[in-house]
C-alpha cells in the first residue's frame, strides 16, 4: 500500500512539473502583461505614466525577463510555500492570498461534494431498486433538468427570488454581516451553514443529477450479479442485501467520480462564486488571469491541478480500501 502510494506520488511529480510549465506558458499566452493592465487602470483614473516609468516598473517586476527565468523564479520557492508575489495585491506573497481563500474553496467544494453524494446516492438507490416506477421516472426527469440548467443562471435567479420574493437581504457571501470579522464561534458556524446551502445547492444540482444517474446505472448492474442472489439466498433482508452487498459494490464509480470532481468544483465554481460573492479561489483566479497577475494565477491553477491529482489519488486509495480486489501494482 505504502509502496503503491509512493509510486503514485512519484508519478505525479513529472506530471506536475509538466503542468506547471504548461500553466506558465498558458498564462503568458494572452498579449500584454500585468503592467499593461496596471497602467491601463491607472490611466483610467487620469494618471499619466511615462514610457520610462513603465520600463522601470517592468524591471522592478521582472517582467522584461525571458519566460524561463520568470518560470524558474516562480518554481524555485515551491518547497517553502513561496509562490512569488502578486502584482495585484501590492506584492503580497501569493501564498498569503491563496491560503485565505483555499480553506473556503475546499469547504464549499467539499460541502458540495458531500451534498451531491448525500442527496444523489439515496435517490440513485431508490431509482435503481424501483426501476421503471413513477419515482424512478420522476427522479430521472428531475436529474436531467438539473443537468440542463446553467449554474450561474440558477444562482442569479435564486438570489433574485431570495431578494424580491422572500425578502432575504443577503443570499450572497458566506457569513452574515455581524460574523464576517468575528472570531469563530458556534453561532458563526451556524451562520455559515445558513449561508452555505445556497452555493452548495447551486453548484451541486448538476452533480447530484450525475450521481443519481451513475448510481442508478451501477446499482442496476450490481443487482444482476450472482453474489446478490447469494446474499438473498442466505435469507438476508432485501434492505440488507441492497445496502450492505449491492451499494458498496456500486460505489466504485462514484468514488472515482468524486475524486475527479473535486478540483472541477473549485474551478467550476468561478462563475457561481462571482455571482454569489463567495470568498473562493474562483474569482481570485478570474481577476488574476484578467489582470495577468501571473504568479497568482499560476499558483491558483497549480493548486487546482494538485487538487485533481490528489483527488484522484485519494479516490484510488479509497477505492483500494473499499474494494480488496484492487491490486496495488
Amino acid at each position, binding site marked *: 500500500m505504502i509502496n503503491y502510494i509512493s509510486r503514485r506520488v512519484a508519478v505525479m511529480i513529472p506530471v506536475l512539473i509538466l503542468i506547471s510549465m504548461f500553466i506558465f506558458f498558458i498564462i503568458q499566452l494572452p498579449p500584454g502583461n500585468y503592467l499593461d493592465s496596471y*497602467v491601463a487602470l491607472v490611466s483610467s483614473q487620469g494618471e499619466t505614466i511615462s514610457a520610462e516609468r513603465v520600463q522601470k516598473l517592468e524591471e522592478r517586476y521582472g517582467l522584461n525577463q525571458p519566460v524561463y527565468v520568470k518560470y524558474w523564479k516562480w518554481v524555485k520557492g515551491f518547497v517553502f510555500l513561496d509562490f512569488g508575489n502578486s502584482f495585484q495585491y501590492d506584492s503580497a506573497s501569493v501564498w498569503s492570498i491563496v491560503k485565505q481563500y483555499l480553506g473556503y474553496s475546499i469547504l464549499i467544494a467539499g460541502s458540495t461534494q458531500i451534498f451531491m453524494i448525500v442527496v444523489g446516492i439515496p435517490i440513485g438507490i431508490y431509482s435503481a431498486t424501483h426501476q421503471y416506477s413513477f419515482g424512478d421516472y420522476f427522479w430521472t426527469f428531475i436529474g436531467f433538468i438539473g443537468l440542463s440548467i446553467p449554474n450561474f443562471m440558477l444562482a442569479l435567479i435564486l438570489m433574485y427570488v431570495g431578494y424580491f420574493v422572500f425578502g432575504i437581504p443577503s443570499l450572497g457571501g458566506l457569513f452574515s454581516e455581524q460574523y464576517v470579522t468575528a472570531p469563530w464561534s458556534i453561532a458563526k458556524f451556524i451562520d455559515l451553514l445558513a449561508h452555505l446551502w445556497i452555493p452548495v445547492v447551486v453548484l451541486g444540482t448538476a452533480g447530484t443529477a450525475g450521481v443519481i444517474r451513475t448510481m442508478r446505472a451501477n446499482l442496476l448492474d450490481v443487482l444482476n450479479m450472482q453474489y446478490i442472489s447469494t446474499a438473498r439466498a442466505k435469507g438476508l433482508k432485501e434492505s440488507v442485501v441492497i445496502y450492505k452487498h449491492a451499494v458498496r459494490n456500486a460505489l466504485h464509480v462514484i468514488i472515482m467520480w468524486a475524486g475527479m470532481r473535486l478540483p472541477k468544483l473549485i474551478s467550476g465554481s468561478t462563475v457561481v462564486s462571482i455571482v454569489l460573492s463567495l470568498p473562493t479561489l474562483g474569482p481570485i483566479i478570474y481577476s488574476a488571469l484578467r489582470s495577468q497577475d501571473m504568479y497568482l494565477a499560476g499558483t491558483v491553477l497549480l493548486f487546482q491541478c494538485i487538487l485533481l491529482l490528489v483527488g484522484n489519488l485519494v479516490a484510488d486509495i479509497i477505492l483500494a480500501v473499499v474494494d480488496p480486489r484492487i491490486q496495488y501494482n
Partner: protein
Amino acid sequence: MKLVKENSYILLTVLILFLTSGLASAYNQAPVLDQEVENGNLPAVDERLPENPYVTEVVDRIGDYGGTLNWFATNATDDPKLMALYNNINLVRYTPSLTIKPDLAESYEVSDDLTTYTFNLRKGIRWSDGELFTANDVMFWFNDIIKNDQLTAESGSGWLKIQDKLPEVEKLDDYTVRFSFAAPNPYFLEKLAFPGRKPYAAAHYLKQFHADYADQAELEKRIADSDFDKWVGLFESKNSKKFFRNPELPVIEPWVPVTEPPANRFVYKRNPYFYKVDEEGNQLPYLDEVVLKIVSDKEVLSMQVVSGAADLQMRQLMTSNFTLYKNNEKSGNYKVLKWQRNTPSLPTFAPNITYAEDEWMRELNNNKKFRQALSLAINRPELNQVATKGLAVPRQATVYPQWEGFKQEWADAYADYDPEKANKLLDEAGFTERNSDGIRLKDGKPIHLTIYIGEDPNLPRTMNMIKDYWKDIGVDMDFKGLEKTLHYTRRDANKLPWAYIGGASWSPTYPYNFIPVSNSYSSGNWWAPLYAKWYETNGKQGEEPPAEIKKLMNLYDEIQITKDQDERVELWQKVFDIHAENVWMIGTNGLHPQFVIKKNYVHNVPETALASWDYGAYFGPSEFYQFFIEKDAQDK
C-alpha cells in the same frame, strides 16, 4: 504681488473659539471617543485638533455623531483605496465650485512667475497615531521617496515635473514648505488637488523601513520576515498610503483602515486626530465607521443596492439601470440623486489623421467635410434614448459646460441630426458615386471604416446604431473589439485607422485628447499620434504637423507659461474654437448623469454636484466626512 488665499472661515473659527473659551472645551467630539479620553488613552479633543482646524461648511445641517455607513465595490484589490481617494486629503483641495482652496495648508503663496509655491501648514495637525504632521513629512516624502532612485518608479513623480524636471522643495520652517520649479507651472495647485497625489509621508513611521534611516540589522530581519527580498518592496508595502493597505501606517484621512487585505469587507474607523471640524466646532467625521463590502459582480452590487443594503453608493451604478433603481426607491428606502458629470462625449470617435498604413484612408480622415458629415449623420437624441434612456446630452466632443470658459456653440457644432446636409457635404467632398449597396466610393473604392473599440459591454449596441446611421449616408462601418492595453499600444504605434475614445475627457491638466502633445500610453493622443510624437520628441520622431495643428500646439505652449487665469481661459477657448470647426473627434452624447444612491437617513449629501475624477475624485469637493446618518437610523 502676492496671491494670498485665506480660509474664509478662520475668522469665524477664531470667533467661536473666543466665545467658547470659557467652557471646558472649545470643540466637541464623537461620543464613542469620550470614554477613550476619560481612560486616558486619548488626549482631549482640543489637544488632538490643530491650532486652527479646517472648518467644513455643512451641506444640510450639523450632523449626528455615530453610525456605520455601508457601501459596495466590486474589486477587492483596487477599490479599497477609494476610501483614501474619495476623501482626498491634500495641501489644497477643490471646492464644490471647482476653485482651489487651502486644506492641510492653512494658506499658500504663489510667486508672480508661477514658479514657486509656498505652503503654510496648519500647526498641530496630527497623524492618526498622534504624531505631529510637519514639514518634515513633506521633506521625507520628497527627499527620501521621490528622489530615491529605487522608490521613484513605484511612487510616480511625472505630475511633479515641469519640462521634465523635478522642482526643488525646501523646508522654510517646521510648518512651511516651498516648491520651486524651473519654469512656470500654472496648474500646479490643480495637479496637487488631483486625487491620490499626496506630497507627504509619515516619516516617523516609515523611516524604520527605509534603508537610509533604519538600523541595518533590524531592517534585514524585517525583510526576511516579509514577503519581499529587498527593502524597497517592504517599504512600498508599508507605505501603501495611496492604496490604503497597511493598517499600521498612520494616516491623516478621516477614517483609518483597520482591515488588512486581502478581504471582502473593509472597515474604516474614525480617526480621532482628524483635523477638521464643522461650523459648531464638532470634530469630524460624524460617522464612526465606514464599511466597504466587496462583491465580485456588478449585478450582485445592483441587487444589494436595490434591496437597500447600501447606505451610500456611487461606483458601479449603471445608467441603464436607472429605472431599476428608481422603481425600488421606496422599498429600498433610498433616493437616487442625479449628479452631473463632465464627460464630453461617450463614445467619441477619432479618425486618425496621421494614419500611415493606408494613404487612401489618411486622405479620407483628413477630409474635414467627411468628418463633419459623419457627425451630422448621427441621430444623437435617438441614440440617447436607446442607449442611455435619454439621460445624457446630445453634443459634440468638447469641453463641459461647468468649465468657466464654456461656449454652447462648440457643443452644437455639427451635432444636430441632419442627414441631408451630411449627404450634401459628402457630395461636395466628391464622394458622389455609390456601389450597388449604396456605399459611396472614393477613388473607386467603397468607403469602409474599421473602428477599434476597447472593452465595454454596452458598446456594441451603440456601435450598431451608429453603423446604421452612417450606412444611411453611404458610409460603411465595422467595429472590432480590442483589449484595453492593446488598444493603447496600437494607438501609440499609429496602427489604428479609427479609434473609439472612452469619454474624451479634458481638464487643464489633462489636455491630451484635444492637443496632440503626448504619444505615450495614458496620455497619448488618439486622432494624431504622429504629430503628438513629433511634439513629444521635439521633432526628432513622428511627423511635422500642418499649420492648423501647430497652432494648437503653440496655444498649448502659451498656456503653460501664462500666469493669468483669465488669459489662460481665453487661450483654451481658441483651442476649442479650432476643434469645433474641424471635428477631429466626433462626439455623440455626453454629460451622463452620475447616480448617487443614498438612504433617506443619510444627510449632508448634496442633491447635485459635479462628479468628476479630476476634481477631487467624485466625493472630494462634497467633503465626504460631513455625511452622517441620522441618530434614529443608527441602530438599524
